[in-house]
């Protein structure tokens, strides 16, 4: 499974990639904003993206990404208010994680998405 991690914070990308690697997901590509993410999105199976980023933010990236694929997207954001969550869901994301989060939240989201797609364990 190829996973794309998008966040303008290098620290957050490191935290995400470490959690994914520890969960057995080693095919991970990273991008620092939505524009870079679009350039690196070919062949990815799942996307974790930040919302508030320079150059191209997470919602703009989701809208562009959705023009070509329905692969699952999880938005990771500090914007945990009801209004923001609804806005993100309308943009086409599949799920969301509110910062701060612990590493096991990342892995449980993957399991949940795989089960919804019928690809998870029985």
């Amino acid at each position, binding site marked *: 499974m190829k996973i794309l991690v998008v966040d303008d914070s290098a620290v*957050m990308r490191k935290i995400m990639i470490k959690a994914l690697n520890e969960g057995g997901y080693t095919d991970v590509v990273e991008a620092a904003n939505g524009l870079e993410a679009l350039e690196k999105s070919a062949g990815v199976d799942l996307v974790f993206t930040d919302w508030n*980023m320079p150059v191209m933010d997470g919602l703009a990236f989701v809208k562009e990404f959705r023009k070509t694929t329905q692969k699952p997207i999880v938005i990771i954001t*500090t914007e945990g208010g*009801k209004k923001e969550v609804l806005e993100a869901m309308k943009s086409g994301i599949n799920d969301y994680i509110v910062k701060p989060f612990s590493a096991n939240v990342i892995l449980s989201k993957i399991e949940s998405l795989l089960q919804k797609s019928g690809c998870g364990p029985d």
Partner: protein
Amino acid sequence: MSKHLLGNESFTQDFIEVTIEVLFTMTGLDVESSGFYEIEGHSQGLDVTSCMDITGILGFSGGRRGSVLLTFKEETALKAVGGMLGMEFKEIDYYVRDGVGELVNMIAGGAKAKLQPKGLDFELSIPNTISGPAHKLSAPDSAVRTRLDFTSPAGIFFAEIYLQEAVLLPL
């Protein structure tokens, strides 16, 4: 109405709770609040950053304008960001600056989520970080800021919130 948003103690408590939660979840530091108080614009002797080494700051816009900052001594910042990544840092570098910016970003976002249902809303900017010994940040003379003091096993640190006065939105 209070002269300053954070004159309402429940709002101050929201920022305190979010700061403790963010630091514990992301860095593993067991943080405790050690007090809070308002600072008038000319109280230079109370400039929170003047004896610190690194400060993350994030601006608010939209419904309310203002900012929140989080400021550390070098050794505290190194341990905090080291805790985030499971690494040891010897000096303030790119990752430490980035990590402090991300912490203030999470505190601002968490506070926004708590304040929205109370009729207070604002948009978040991208966080910035300033580092260097005895760096100093200025606020407008009219600004009334609220300083939050914290203790942790990695050392003391401070947050400071400034939100411009505005009429509370109807719930």
